[in-house]
């Protein structure tokens, strides 16, 4: 112990600028060769840095150091890391960052501008249409599209599947892929590729569709058009009438043609056209899309139910909660554990809501108290966590998915960090904590969407793997200190019970969103198995 004290004193002398060359050389040698010393060095500096970052009381004057102090305000905690370089950044990030602009170098004048968000919310709707239905969409950019979201002017392209757009101007459009649309404003769209059917009520007359070989102005109708890849384009009028002009002719009246209900035309890229028979059935109506959607949903629900039932016989399952509301006991979360045993979770606060499908229920977590208390007995060399959830917001520094009580050795914490990373936190030894994390996976688009998350702690492969929607997102080797059996025991879904000490902000970890399935396997699943769970359960 005395040697350590001597070493620490030597550290201090170096940091305070009192050391001579010999002492410095000694420090360097120790840093190079002694990993414990290196850690101690960093821990010492860590204390120094943390002290410098602590919030100070407002009315501090440094003249009389022993003056009686006011209570420290912990509201600045979020900003204490920013203080040191606030001046520099404040200069750089000028426009629009009102929060940072209001910080100046002195801690005494920091104004809090909301605890959890750094940048003020923008209340601005640049949308011109709403995406109201999708079915079987495939394409590189389609995963970001959410039903119900407003679509701003811009391009939408996809390889397969149907979607329905309701334009602010009043027109409803169903488009079948492969397609490429450029939305100009609330009553104009360019169709570069795809099969489109539009219903344009009276008040939306004048809805315009631009295609490579013509400009179509609707006069209060229902029509369909098919723009193919380089070939001839087709126009079919099912009801009412439309006007057609040559493309880029600026609606030259000499090119004007009128088509009525029952008329149909093909137009070549060179402008030549010939009449054809109108084919109503080829163009999907909103009603038909709704039926297709419903049928597909029923099918998926069926697949999922079969999967749910199969888990009853899966020996690897140590906890399975399908989140199906029980009419008779709706404050209990019914599930099953190993060997067909029943597991019951105690629901606190959470309200039942809709899940991935309208026929399935989920639990909604909103308020700080909302949680489900469960107990998962047993010890495991490897574990797999799997959940279907919808994250509505990342309000806390850590947002709980499944956290064991306290933070005991080898009792994992499965959670989402405020910056959007999925984290499996494990205390491998008393003072060896490690968070195995992904990159940020919850950006603005993923919030509000049903997502499948899975994390595998694999003792055999000595790694932790995280999966998002069935795809591997991160693989990290286990820490050297890892190696013991994991246990869950008393744990909480969507919150943290028995948080360690009084960390206040750090301790509040209530989840904001809905969860509609949770599975814990006492074994490590492989990539294919995780993907299968995702595919069988996707809404």
């Amino acid at each position, binding site marked *: 112990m005395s040697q350590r004290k001597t070493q620490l004193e030597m550290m201090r002398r170096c940091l*305070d600028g009192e050391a001579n060359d010999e002492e410095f050389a000694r420090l360097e040698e120790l840093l190079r060769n002694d990993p414990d010393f290196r850690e101690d060095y*960093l821990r010492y500096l860590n204390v120094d840095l943390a002290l410098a970052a602590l919030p100070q009381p407002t009315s501090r004057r*440094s003249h009389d*150091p022993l003056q009686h102090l006011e209570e420290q305000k912990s509201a600045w905690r979020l900003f204490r890391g920013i203080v040191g370089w606030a*001046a520099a950044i404040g200069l750089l990030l000028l426009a629009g*960052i009102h929060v940072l602009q209001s910080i100046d170098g002195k801690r005494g004048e920091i104004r809090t501008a909301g605890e959890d968000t750094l940048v003020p919310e923008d209340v601005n709707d640049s949308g011109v249409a709403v995406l109201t239905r999708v079915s079987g969409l495939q394409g590189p950019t389609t995963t970001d599209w959410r039903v119900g979201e407003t679509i701003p002017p811009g391009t939408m392209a996809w390889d397969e599947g149907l979607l329905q757009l309701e334009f602010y101007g009043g027109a409803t459009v169903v488009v079948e892929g492969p397609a490429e649309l450029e939305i100009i404003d609330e009553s104009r769209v360019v169709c570069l590729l795809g099969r489109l059917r539009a219903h344009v009520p009276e008040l939306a007359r004048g809805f315009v569709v631009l295609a490579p070989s013509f400009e179509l102005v609707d006069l209060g109708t229902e029509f369909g058009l098919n723009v193919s890849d380089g070939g001839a384009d087709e126009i079919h009028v099912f009801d009412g009438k439309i006007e057609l002009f040559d493309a880029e002719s600026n609606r030259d009246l000499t090119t004007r043609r009128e088509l009525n209900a029952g008329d149909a035309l093909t137009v070549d890229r060179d402008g030549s056209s010939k009449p054809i028979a109108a084919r109503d059935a080829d163009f999907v109506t909103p009603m038909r899309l709704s039926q297709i959607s419903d049928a597909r949903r029923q099918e998926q629900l069926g697949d999922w139910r079969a999967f749910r039932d199969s888990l009853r016989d899966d020996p690897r399952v140590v906890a399975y909660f399908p989140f199906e509301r029980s009419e008779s006991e709706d404050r209990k979360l019914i599930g099953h554990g190993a060997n067909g045993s029943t597991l019951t979770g105690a629901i606190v606060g959470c309200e039942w809501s809709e899940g991935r499908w309208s026929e399935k229920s989920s639990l909604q977590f909103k308020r700080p108290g909302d949680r489900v208390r469960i107990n998962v007995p047993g010890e495991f060399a490897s574990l797999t966590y799997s959940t279907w959830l919808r994250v509505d917001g990342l309000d806390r520094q850590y947002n709980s998915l499944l956290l064991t009580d*306290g933070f*005991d050795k080898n009792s994992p914490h499965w959670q989402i960090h405020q910056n959007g990373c999925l984290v499996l936190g494990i205390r491998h030894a008393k003072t060896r904590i490690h968070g195995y994390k992904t990159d940020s996976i919850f950006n603005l688009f993923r919030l509000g969407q049903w997502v499948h998350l899975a994390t595998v702690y694999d003792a055999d492969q000595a790694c932790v793997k995280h999966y998002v929607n069935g795809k591997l997102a991160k693989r990290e080797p286990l820490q050297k200190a890892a190696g013991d059996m994991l246990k869950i025991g008393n744990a909480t879904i969507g919150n943290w019970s028995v948080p360690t*000490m009084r*960390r206040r902000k750090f301790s509040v970890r209530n989840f904001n969103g809905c969860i509609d399935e949770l599975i814990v396997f006492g074994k490590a699943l492989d990539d294919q198995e995780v993907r299968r769970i995702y595919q069988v359960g996707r809404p």
Partner: protein
Amino acid sequence: MDEGDREQHDQFLRLFMEHEEALRLFVRSLLFNQEESREVMQEVAIVLWRKFDASLDILSFRRWAFGVAKMEVLSFRRDRARDRLIFSDDIAELMERTVLQQADTLEHERIALEDCVGKLPADQRELVNTAYEPGVKKNDMARELGWTSMALYKKLHRIRLLLMECVRRELALEGRS
């Protein structure tokens, strides 16, 4: 600021704040002087923002950020450091590795620190709060207290050691096993 710029700097802030404390610790471990390391951190922040590439994932950003920090420390030492004592290059590598390895534990320790400061006897707490106030020069402070500078440094050192012990205890207590 338009939509795209806003996204860009949100992304930057997210990534930067995730690593800010680790970077600061890294810089400090190579530059003894607190003022100097603060200055270098500001330069680091500026360079990271100016050259920020939003397509970087966390791991790449981290690697890059530590690289920039190392570079800024080196150029600061070359141009400005008052300290004639300079670490060899391999030390920087070791410090970077250790900082990253211990990142989670060190974060928990920082969080525990506030409670530990609260547990200090009142006079020690006052001393520490005053000494760490921005703009306070320890030599001036010692004079005002009627102490030698050496005495003040040693006293602060002892308090830091107490805090280190407290923090370690708190962390161990958390793992009630």
